[in-house]
């Protein structure tokens, strides 16, 4: 049984008001696709759950001129279908379309996916390639930081007590290309064994703004800086693709676990790198 008192809140101030009167464990409930499962598996202490899913200001995808803002309650389904995301963050819409199952994508949110801080989080991996800023708010006030600074380990973040993830923003780049590739234990409803997101632009055959992130091969999602640097400004051709596939295998530190092995994961980062580059080369 889930041991939780669930209270629904309509605004951030209301959330903080309810939270301030509470000592002991507190969780914010959005889509519930991670929280409910963890509670059912008794991985959480009895707690107060503040249901933030009705807070209007945390919803929606907005064009803010130079950047795109994504509210933390935006679902994977919405991300995968939204024209702004498709245009400016194809890796993210790609990743969102591959999360879990239709049911999970309909309920699960990007804020929750980040707060859960799984090193295998599909949307997080894609967000890493977008120069994403994460926006947070606690009773003392809001703050923003680069997404990479948010995660500190599996399930661990710099989130302060009672802090809410309010949204994400990333700069718009015209001509953005990108994709997200994952290998799972089956075709759907599978946590990534290894995943790779790539975002870039391509001008007269040359790669620019190359950002690569790897999921499930380190304690957090990681960048592949050597590959990013190596590819920058280069002409996208077969030999470059092959070179990147070799180089990226030096950039992760995977482990053996129930889903796969260290050796397989490492090798697959190379295969996914090559395939991602081939995909952006054939961009339509």
């Amino acid at each position, binding site marked *: *049984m889930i041991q939780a008192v669930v209270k629904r809140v309509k605004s951030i101030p209301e959330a903080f008001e309810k939270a301030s009167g509470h000592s002991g464990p507190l969780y914010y409930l959005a889509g519930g696709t991670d929280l409910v499962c963890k509670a059912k*598996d008794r991985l959480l202490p009895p707690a107060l759950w503040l249901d933030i899913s009705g807070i209007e200001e945390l919803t929606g995808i907005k064009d803010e001129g130079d950047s795109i803002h994504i509210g933390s309650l935006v679902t994977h389904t919405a991300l995968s279908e939204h024209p702004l995301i498709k245009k400016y963050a194809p890796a993210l819409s790609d990743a969102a379309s591959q999360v879990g*199952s239709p049911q999970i994508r309909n309920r699960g949110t990007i804020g929750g996916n980040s707060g859960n801080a799984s090193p295998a989080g599909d949307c997080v991996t894609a967000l890493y390639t977008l120069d994403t800023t994460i926006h947070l708010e606690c009773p003392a006030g809001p703050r923003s930081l680069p997404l990479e600074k948010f995660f500190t380990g599996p399930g661990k973040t710099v989130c302060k007590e009672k802090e809410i993830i309010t949204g994400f923003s990333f700069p718009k780049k015209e001509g953005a290309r990108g994709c997200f590739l994952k*290998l799972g*234990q*089956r*075709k*759907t*409803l*599978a*946590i990534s064994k290894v995943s790779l997101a790539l975002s870039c632009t391509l001008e007269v055959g040359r790669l620019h703004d190359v950002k690569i992130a790897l999921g499930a091969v380190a304690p957090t999602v990681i960048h592949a800086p050597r590959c990013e640097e190596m590819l920058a400004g280069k002409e996208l051709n077969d030999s470059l693709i092959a070179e990147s596939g070799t180089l990226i295998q030096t950039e992760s530190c995977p482990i053996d676990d*129930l*889903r*796969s*092995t260290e050796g*397989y994961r490492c*090798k*697959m980062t190379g*295969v996914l790198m090559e395939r991602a580059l081939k995909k952006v080369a054939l961009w339509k």
Partner: protein
Amino acid sequence: MIERQVSVVMSIVGERVVRVDAAEKATGRAKFIDDMKFPGMLHASVLRSPYAHAKILSIDKSEAEAVPGVYAVCTHEDVPGKNRHHVVTDDQPFFAEDVARHYGEAIAAVAAETRELAEYAVTKIKVEYEELPAALGLENALLDEAPYVGGEENIFRRYKIRKGDVDKGFDESDIVIEHKFVTPYQEHAYLETNGALAVPGSVGDMTVYGTMQCPFYVLHAVSDVLGLPQNMVRIIQAATGGGFGGKEDVPSLVAAIAAVLACKAGRPVKYILSREEDLICMSKRHPAIVRIKMGAKKTGELTAIEADYKVNAGAYVTLSTIVLWRGTVHVAGPYRCPNVKVDAAAVATNMVPCGAYRGFGTPQVIFAHESMMDELAFRLGMDPLEIRKINALCVGDETSTGQVITEEMGMGLMETIERASEESGWAEKRKKYSNQEGETRKGIGMSTFLYGVGLGAGGNYMARAGAHIQVYDDASVLLAVGTAEMGQGMKTVLSQIAAEELGCPLENVSIIMTDTSHVPDSGPTVASRSTVVSGNALRDAAMKIKAGLYAAVSKKKGVPPEVMESRDGAIYNRENGKMLMTFGEAVNAATGTRKHLAAQGWYISPNTDFNEEDGHGNIYFTYTWVTQVAEVEVDMRTGQVTVEHLTCAHDIGRAINPTLMEGQIQGGSSQGMGYGTMEEILYDKKGRMLTTSLSTYMIPTIQDMPDVTPIIVEHPYKEGPYGAKGVGETPLMGIAPAVTNAIRSATGVPIREIPAKPERVLKSLEGEEIL
């Protein structure tokens, strides 16, 4: 003896009627045990061993008993009857006594007002253990230094077959090949976990509702554990959300715990396992190692088969000896071979006791023999289809146990091979896939096998079934049978058989959930036997009822009963085709003349036998013959295998309901694909299961499931109802080798260990010799 009539015109049998339980299941009205409530009902939770092997030094339940709302805390000391689960032997306790022999073995149980309270109270039971070295894994348990678990030097049972002279056979061969094959655990992953609800009666009796395949097994277990005579125990099957063998023997363990608690508390007790608990301690398919040596002529004819088959039985015998026996007698496949030598052993380990799972010890050996047939074809430069045709058993041939295959058994092996290969486009695809380049490659592979229907010589004494039919005066008909509906469609198929035999409209017929107080012990619902045995028992009862109806009609119409026949909802004069009375009018006439329109039917399967010394015998009364063709695409760089299409031809004698038959084929194929490509149970070094949820134990989703083309082949079995054999298990059984043979066709690389997960396939592609 049942009147044999295979060629009559039928109006209900063979029709694609809608499942009789479709509406209740689809609307949620079907009552599963979790839907049932009784006044004062308590909920159970069970304390299970955290060690794979440990001495139990003491159990202190006082603190748990003191928790308010707790009504009973039970250990082996609270068992009023025998603390032994009888399956084949009596080695498994319902509650561990001095020693816990596997991780997850039941130690103690609590009944409390709520499930949460029971779960809490369980944590208050204090057990002192002394951890012992554990035998983990089949090969480890056979090492000299392995700790003793059970049986004779950790072997519970051996079987053998000696036919002809294998040494001579190998001498006469042009080629001899030998390989080792490894197969994994498989979890049933039924939608509904195991569970039972025990309700004490007013005269010391006990009624148990539960999700189960074998109500009579549960009857015996509850009677044993409570020390009650069997007439004081009543088992009523609740709607059952899948079984696949996983609800054959273990529901007895669950029901016994619920019954002991209910007995002590004096209140109804519901015990439903969580998914995690169910995964950890309920039965699984046996992991196995099969070594096969085959000799053949250049032309492909087999000259000798020698096999060694070992299964990891787990900590207790349970069904392992019979599982092993079935594997032993199937290890040579559906092939003609004069010289066969098989040695088989069930190995005791400190792991979860394995039991029945769709195929019962046979998918393991099919994986081995079908991989070997492809190896042989490859080495001889032959088409895998040809080598199977050359060796396929025909009418008049002997199986490895010396059983002669007769036309009367229904023999459609060759037709399954031909139709599956034609339908799948075998010849042209093989040609097309023979020379491929690139990162993804396609392949096509096949498997062919036989499967003994019914319990066979391994369970001859249980090979009988009862049925009860009662006709009411409004011409409605109630059926009761002793086998169980678990989602496979038995109620529908048996309703069709009864309606056909009685000649009444199908709408008149309804069938109750299996209840041990209504029908005598009919054996288990396993071994693809229900259609044949309960179908025949119903026909027996129907014929008794028809005798009453015909006598009444005869009296009114002056036509002798001998010329009457029942069909299409009426009774006809067979000689002139004239309708004499509708079924309803006949019932009216019969009740008006005080005819007995209720009857018990009884069916005894033909005798089967098995000689322990040489493994010879007529071991099954009939066989189902199957050929399965898999088409795959292999990603050469990731090792990922996509099963794109399965073509499955089953000779099942007669499809009583083709839609249900196709459903069985589609569902079973999916389970077979999971077995072959992704399903795996992992343990840590201490023998604790790690894959304890369905997010870590992977089964295929609808997205993974390939298109399936089912092909129904009908070579009627003379003794089967309307010619029917059985289909419950075979759809799963040959998919794994069909898939791995297809991987070989795509890549040139054999896969000798399943599941063929990407990590393993990639290693093989990279040339790592794994086995």
